[in-house]
């Protein structure tokens, strides 16, 4: 389907001829996605009708209003790189709004510890600027090239979550272009009181805005947002050793220390999470196996294979990456003492490799800056999937990691997915252990056979949520990939029917169905369960 010429001209008048295109080559660069093969069985999602590059919120608003006027859908994206940036099927008449030109840091409020950014500021850039000021921001697992703007950040989970929470909670005031084209300022911004609060005195709509999973472009456009930032006890700039593939600081900063711990049992693993959370000494704590650490250190797949060839883990169950960081010697001494105490209490053992100061520095930087997540996730095979990952208690999260690894083993045995040792559960105890998620990542090749394996694993993982079992006698929440109509309809009835409310919200906020809800929710597919019961 091609956008009619006169409608194309409407958008061209808004953004300028240089900032709009419907050339097939341009469109293909937006419809190509690494895991499109999971959906379409090839590398291509459906093409948008055109791509527009607005420069500011006024242009975004004008584009959205034009979409409403001319019955065109829109799907906004910034740094994102998954198939959820595209329409899910042909014929939806969607234009892509690429927010690349909106890339400024608008404010860093050091005293009140928040920043205000546009969508295309990357987390890495923001973190670097913050560190100069003794501050730091969360960087989501996908890495430092992702947006620093909290609302669109998918789940917002990142390795600094122990102290930096997750971005679905770091969100403060937001400037939101609604699917109808109105601009709504949320929180303190709604009363021109600044950006410091997401909850008032203006409207507080954080749950509606993005919920837990984010909206994948299906709920309007977020053009500016404020996010909480946190203390950084390290130096403003870390001088780096300049040698690819290992640009790491020259040394571990003063009053920093790292561990990579292994445990004799899953229970001890969970216990450690609770204890270190209660003690509030961890700066960075995340569930990290040697799969991640060795990939962070290795410069190639071959180097990684060499590292794991003769590797014997220190104990049965990997483990946590732990970083403590302090401003003073006495603080550091205290924190170190507490961690050692907890290590003793949980019978944890440290990875011997991490005794090497150079390894400590490299890993610390990989964990904090998150510049190397591409290595464990994409370098091995080029594609991946993930499941489990409910945000809940530490016990439940760890249990999901255990079950995820067990399910994976079957598909590894069948050679449907990559053999990575099975236990590749990545997760973080957020806000000093008040809640945790552990997602089990699987790697598969980019071919359709590889995608089949990834899909089989995902279905088996989803089934554990749907069918009560000894591990999950009641529904264990919702898995990480709960987005889109099909998943919401599957899991909603088992989780307080949230999907009914979500669909009502979508209908109310987007009456013209202008914001492409392919991967969020749509009003076009009713819940078959409710339909059977005569409900709408």
């Amino acid at each position, binding site marked *: 389907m091609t956008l009619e010429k006169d409608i194309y001209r409407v958008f061209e008048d808004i953004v300028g001829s240089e900032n709009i295109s419907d050339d097939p080559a341009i469109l293909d660069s937006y419809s190509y996605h690494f895991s499109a093969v999971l959906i379409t069985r090839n590398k291509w999602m459906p093409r948008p009708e055109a791509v527009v590059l607005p420069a500011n919120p006024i242009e975004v608003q004008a584009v959205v209003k034009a979409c409403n006027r001319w019955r065109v859908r829109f799907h906004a994206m910034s740094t994102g790189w998954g198939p959820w940036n595209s329409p899910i099927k042909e014929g939806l008449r969607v234009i892509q709004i690429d927010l690349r030109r909106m890339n400024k840091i608008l404010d860093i409020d050091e005293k009140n510890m928040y920043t205000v950014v546009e969508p295309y500021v990357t987390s890495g850039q923001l973190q670097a600027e913050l560190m100069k000021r003794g501050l730091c921001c969360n960087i989501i697992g996908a890495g430092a090239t992702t947006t620093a703007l909290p609302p669109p950040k998918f789940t917002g989970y990142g390795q600094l979550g122990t102290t930096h929470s997750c971005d679905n909670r770091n969100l403060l005031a937001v400037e939101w272009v609604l699917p109808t084209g109105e601009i709504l300022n949320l929180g303190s911004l709604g009363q021109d009181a600044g950006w410091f609060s997401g909850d008032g005195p203006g409207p507080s709509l954080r749950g509606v805005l993005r919920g837990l999973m984010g909206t994948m472009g299906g709920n309007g456009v977020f053009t500016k947002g404020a996010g909480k930032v946190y203390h950084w006890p390290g130096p403003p700039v870390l001088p780096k050793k300049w040698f690819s593939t290992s640009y790491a600081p020259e040394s571990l900063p003063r009053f920093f220390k790292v561990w990579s711990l292994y445990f004799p049992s899953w229970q001890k693993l969970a216990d450690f999470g609770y204890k270190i959370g209660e003690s509030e000494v961890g700066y960075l704590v995340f569930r990290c196996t040697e799969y991640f650490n060795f990939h962070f250190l290795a410069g190639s797949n071959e180097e990684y294979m060499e590292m794991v060839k003769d590797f014997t883990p220190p104990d049965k169950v990997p483990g946590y990456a732990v970083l403590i960081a302090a401003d003073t010697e006495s603080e550091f001494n205290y924190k170190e003492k507490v961690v050692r105490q907890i290590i003793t209490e949980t019978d944890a053992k440290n990875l011997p490799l991490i005794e090497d100061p150079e390894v400590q520095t490299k890993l610390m930087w990989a964990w904090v800056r998150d510049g190397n997540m*591409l290595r464990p996730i994409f*370098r091995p095979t080029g594609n991946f999937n993930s499941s489990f990952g409910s945000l809940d208690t530490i016990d439940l999260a760890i249990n999901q990691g255990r079950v995820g690894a067990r399910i994976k083993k079957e598909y590894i045995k069948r050679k449907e997915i990559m053999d990575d040792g099975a236990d590749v559960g990545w997760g973080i105890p957020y806000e000093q252990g008040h809640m945790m998620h552990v997602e089990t990542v699987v790697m598969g090749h980019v071919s359709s056979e590889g995608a089949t394996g990834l899909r089989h694993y995902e279905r088996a993982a989803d089934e554990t949520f749907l069918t009560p079992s000894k591990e999950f006698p009641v529904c264990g929440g919702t898995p990480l990939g709960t987005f889109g109509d099909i998943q919401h309809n599957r899991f909603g009835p088992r989780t307080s029917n949230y999907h009914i409310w979500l669909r009502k919200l979508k209908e109310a906020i987007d009456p013209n169905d202008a914001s492409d809800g392919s991967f969020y929710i749509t009003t076009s597919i009713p819940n078959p369960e409710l339909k059977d019961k005569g409900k709408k």
Partner: protein
Amino acid sequence: MALEDYREEMERCCRCSACKFIPMDIVDSYEYVTVCPSIARYNFHAYSGGGRLNVALGMLDGRVPYSEEVLNIIYRCQMCGACDISCKYNRDMEPLETLYALRIRAVEEGQLLPDHLAIIEGLRKEDNMVQGLKADRGKWAEGLDVKNISKEKTEVLFHAGCRYSFDQELWPLARAAINLIKKAGIDVGIAGREEVCCGGRAYAMGYEGELIKYAEHNGEIFKQAGAKTLVTCCADGYQAFKVMYDKVGKKLDLQVFHISEYLDLLIKQGNLKPTKKGPMVVTYHDPCHLGRLAESYIHWKGELKIEPDKPILHVPPKKFRRGHEGVYEPPRNILRNIPGLRFVEMKRIKEHAWCCGAGGGVLEAYPDFAIWSALQRIEEAECTGAEAIVTACPWCKKNFSDAIKQNGNRIKVYDLIELLATSTDAELK
């Protein structure tokens, strides 16, 4: 390798956009983290390294026919390799090779730019890339007391390159290079009028045949001259002689130096002594063809092993060229050796230097884009507080100079040679 041979790599692009930035591990500020002039200027994803892989895959899948936009995507790229270096920091991929294959395919299929064609026709007729007359090639050396290989053999052969040979503003620099080498007591010769292009810039435009032709020709000429050492002051030439000839199977049987390497060596050996003060704050721009693109070529003959339950492995293991073995320290050493000169670094340096804008045929076909790219770099240089930006490539110098003239910036542009010549009292005229 043909474009089809890179399909597997195209399909492994995960669209992470690392190709648009310097690696986040070395980012220490908000500014100066973008590394690709093309995406920075044109903004659509197709204009990034990864985006071009997507477009190439679309072409192989029959989804994307040639169009004006496709040609813009293919040719509005300096082929600077920054995307390649950033990508392979975390991935076992080499996007630049796909970009070369894409250009070569476009040329093979007649999808040319008229501006490029004019240059290539000039090359075929007159053996240079600047539309000069072959008969005028040696004029830069008139009156210079230097051996000519048409009359006598030489162990050390100096190759001026097309830009130095024909740009009269740069003649003093080429002459100064000879004077510096001779001042150090080295017996050097030149080809003068018989010198021909290296073929490197033609290859970057997609004309693989020209590179092979000049590789064969130059290989023969250098052999006949008895040369054991080749010194060039053109960064493009350096990359062609040292790296690209080897890539196409025509490796030269002599040692190749860039003038900065050679002069640094002469200083270290005590044969050149910069003594005159040059009180100035300067910064140094790493030319792409002297830096990240100048690592020795590594041939790999092996198999990409793809098994469903294993990671992708190169058998035997493939050593990737990650850009850190380019010529970075010799120019810096020279600057540090000049008394009174204070040297400050920009943010994007060495293998992550921002391209000056002149490469890949952009200067010839999209001069406004070339100037735009140069102005980005000049702004970065000015932010260091430097009074001058120094470089070691005539294409960089020309593009910076043109951009400064057009935009009215006060920062000066120097070639390394002229600063060293002044400091050693070598003749600079």
